[in-house]
């Protein structure tokens, strides 16, 4: 299998095609996926509010991309690694990372640090695409040590223009790293549209150049993301190397809380995309299956809201960071000059 998928794979019916069931996903698993979607959505919605209230700093909104994040996580085993971009800042919640930790990251508090090995989720990567070679190296390194764990890396459409994407994808393919590269093609990089980012007809076509298969799915459809990532994971675990998954969606929210999309985006298109919201789409699917009703939706939302209320409270209750943390953790074995600097800080601010 090394062809590129030409169409846009869907599991949830779009009016023309009927709903499908994903093999191996039972009703409980489908409902767990719903809880994940709602938790991510609630984190994002509350974060925008917290930002407006001055309780967190600048925040990169991911509304509409929860299907890609949750579909990916559910297609992995807990031993598998996730390398998020900054737009996937809260993905670790699906691995048990406390929401307060991620809130602290956005509050600029060092307790926003986490140990990636606790949850097999790498640190939030701020520079674009530079996490792709990390994921390639980790996946390769685990395979060399005889592990059957795999890695998945998330990045946006703009990232495919970066050298780091190319170098990471190429190395992963050459060493047959057990890696799934998941491109969130939301068609915007801040204000730059996809047409100004690439002349390629499909981002998945790039996979051909690396000698790996390219899959294309509807990024609004959590089950199509799940299914495609699961295929990539199966290839990776079988030692067949990396897979590129293009999840096509649309950024219907601002890039971040400091952005003004009215300067560059067509509001009618945004409104049309919001009609196909990934959470609503999945809830309608589960409702058609008879698995979900309004009462359950409300209880899942309330549970997520309670999580967020407790998380922001915990974050705000935490003491301000110790100034001496400025000097901590950059080195395991720091140069003596840092101790001199710390002494100066203590003396001046005593």
């Amino acid at each position, binding site marked *: 299998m090394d062809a590129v998928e030409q169409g846009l794979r869907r599991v949830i019916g779009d009016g023309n095609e009927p709903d499908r069931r994903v093999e191996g996903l039972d009703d409980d698993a489908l409902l767990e996926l719903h809880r994940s979607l709602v938790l991510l959505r609630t984190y994002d919605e509350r974060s925008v509010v917290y930002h407006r209230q001055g309780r967190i700093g600048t925040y990169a909104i991911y509304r509409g991309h929860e299907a890609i994040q949750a579909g990916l996580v559910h297609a992995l085993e807990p031993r598998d*690694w996730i390398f998020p971009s900054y737009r996937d800042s809260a993905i670790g919640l699906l691995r048990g990372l406390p929401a307060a930790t991620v809130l602290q990251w956005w509050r600029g508090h*060092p307790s926003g*640090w*986490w*140990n*990636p*090995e*606790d949850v097999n989720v*790498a*640190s939030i990567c*701020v*520079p674009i695409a*530079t996490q*792709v*070679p*990390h*994921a*390639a*190296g*980790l*996946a*390769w*390194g*685990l395979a*060399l*040590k005889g*592990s059957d764990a795999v*890695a998945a890396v998330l990045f946006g459409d703009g990232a495919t223009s970066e*050298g*780091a994407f*190319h*170098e*990471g994808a*190429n*190395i992963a393919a*050459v*060493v047959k790293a057990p890696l799934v590269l998941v491109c969130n093609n939301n068609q915007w990089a801040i204000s730059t549209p996809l047409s100004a980012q690439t002349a390629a007809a499909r981002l998945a076509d790039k996979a051909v150049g690396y000698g790996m298969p390219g899959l294309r799915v509807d990024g609004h459809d959590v089950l199509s993301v799940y299914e495609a990532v699961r295929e990539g994971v199966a290839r990776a675990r079988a030692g067949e190397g990396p897979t590129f998954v293009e999840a096509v969606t649309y950024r219907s929210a601002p890039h971040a809380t400091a952005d003004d999309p009215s300067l560059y985006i067509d509001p009618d298109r945004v409104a049309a995309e919001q009609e196909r919201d990934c959470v609503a789409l999945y809830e309608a699917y589960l409702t058609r299956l008879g698995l979900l009703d309004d009462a359950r939706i409300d209880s899942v939302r309330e549970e997520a809201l309670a999580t967020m209320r407790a998380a922001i409270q915990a974050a705000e209750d935490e003491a301000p960071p110790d100034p001496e943390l400025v000097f*901590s*953790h*950059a*080195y*395991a*074995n*720091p*140069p*003596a*000059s840092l101790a001199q600097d710390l002494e100066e800080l203590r003396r001046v601010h005593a």
Partner: protein
Amino acid sequence: MSATAVATRELLLVEAVNDALHVELARDDSVMVLGEDVGRLGGVFRATSGLRDAFGANRCVDTPLSEAGILGAAVGLCMAGWRPVVEMQYDAFSYPCLDQLINHVGRYRWRTGGTMAFPLVVRMPYGGGVRAPELHDDSPETYYVHTPGVKVAVPATPADAKGLLAAAIRDPDPVVVLEPKLVYRTARGAVPEGEHVVELGRARVAREGSDVTLVAWGAMVGVCERAADALAAQVSAEVLDLRTLKPLDEESLLASVRKTGKCVVVQEAPRTCGFASEVAALLAERAILDLHGPVLRVTGYDVPYPYWQLEDWYMPSVERVVDAVQRVLAF
């Protein structure tokens, strides 16, 4: 010779690098070497010769031409429990990897609150004077020293090339090791056999003297020694080989200048904000009352490293070092 004397072998500097890699890969099976042409060829300077045969293609890996990708992959390899030793084929070829070095190598440990270790090494031949095409001649140490979270070592002798590289490989932090390619095959010396570690952060008095301190690292140590020879009839020059730029052995530097009261710092890199500037600033802050004259810098110029028919006019020469010493003595 005492019974505890360490057995040594006479090796060229590049052979000492190779020896260190063989010893460290044998000692610790999580150490792996990766880079362009390091395996089948053994590196363009043969620094990694024999490793692929001895340890297999998975521990001495020929990578694609991909400096940033190699270093980025090394970050991930650390997360998987490896200790990668990355070769950059030449000094200036390392610039694409600055993205990974600055954004991740120097920050990832900090970013995880100190919970994950990134014990990788980036080693590369550096420096000019080798009659090479453009961008095979640079001295990029300042970029690396300026990057928080990263340490930098620059050996000048075969024994230090082995010992500092071994220390770098065993160090829990990322270390960049710059190897003076000018003397890869001219510096020859006794190198301890087997395990040999030179602790990072310890300068070496290459020559004792009392009138002036010549501070250098890498290939400029030899230039300073020759300048000291040239001056020997009139001046007793101490040559201090820093060996590690970060952590810097401030005590040895201050002790030498306290003794001599005069200091000339010699570097190949362009002058502005080069490491010589850091040495001069440190002496201004910490040794002002010990100094009997200005700290002078002898450096490359603030221009691109020239085409090689001009390079001898760019590289700090014995004559320029002698001139600087005479100026500071006449101050």
